[in-house]
């Protein structure tokens, strides 16, 4: 237990590895946040789009494995 008002990340600075697996890719004009999985495939984490209908597209569901 750490008795400090400091933020967790200030005591344990995030390692570069944490950032290494996350990528932002532009596909069909939409921005996707993807994570590289241990098997080497990419998994969709988040879709960033202002069009509400993009979120209804089954292909863009978070968790989808990209090929």
């Amino acid at each position: 237990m750490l008795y400090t008002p400091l933020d967790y990340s200030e005591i344990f600075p995030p390692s570069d590895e944490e950032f290494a697996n996350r990528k932002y890719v532009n596909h069909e004009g939409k921005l996707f946040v993807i994570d590289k999985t241990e098997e080497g495939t990419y998994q969709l984490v988040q879709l960033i789009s202002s069009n509400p209908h993009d979120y209804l597209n089954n292909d863009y569901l978070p968790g989808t494995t990209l090929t």
Partner: protein
Amino acid sequence: MTKDAGKKEEQQSGSSLVQKIQALGQTNVPQAPDSNIHVLSIIGQVEGHMQLPPQNKTTKYEHLLPQLIAIEQNPKIEGMIILLNTVGGDVEAGLALSEMIASMSKPTVSIVLGGGHSIGVPIAVSTDYSFIVPTATMTIHPIRLTGLVIGVPQTFEYLDKMQERVIQFVINHSNIKEEKFKDLMFAKGNLTRDIGTNVVGREAVEYGLIDEVGGVKEAMEKLNELIQKSKPDDESQVIQ
């Protein structure tokens, strides 16, 4: 052969179903026609110059600013809704977003859901009309800085000016009076061992900070009304 192929297809659809359940916890999402209203969600922390670790939920201004330009440019998009559930974050990134939203020509409406704290306040008031759900809260507090400070007097001056910019933006884009806003910002005894005020739903409307209490229905009605108003009167010209 055909039986085999059918089986394979069934298996495939079965596995994609499992994948969907793993991904969203549901099997299908409804489809709808094209929308003339676009949505921007300001979620988590408003991220500034420092990138936060991936486990944090953040709104990155470098993602939103181009989207705002795209919305402004696209003639098919007639209005925009801003959904806010943020704890605040980087002041200058938040002000950049607020100024961008405020300077858009298309009708904009914001809804504060859950929380619109700190720098979420100027973002919420930057739209043409703002809504807050009855349970949402907004924390108004002075600007703070964490980390190493070199040159205390200069930094103090700088922060004081930055705070003034936030105050000016809020009073220019909402109905709250400068004195009232400063009173709320520097109030003692509302937040435990801190200065500032936490205003909930209706209170925010009473102070003039937010225009109306309401949710999705009210916001959509208002946005459609604003869109109708902003459209040039083609029909009346035809009659003449």
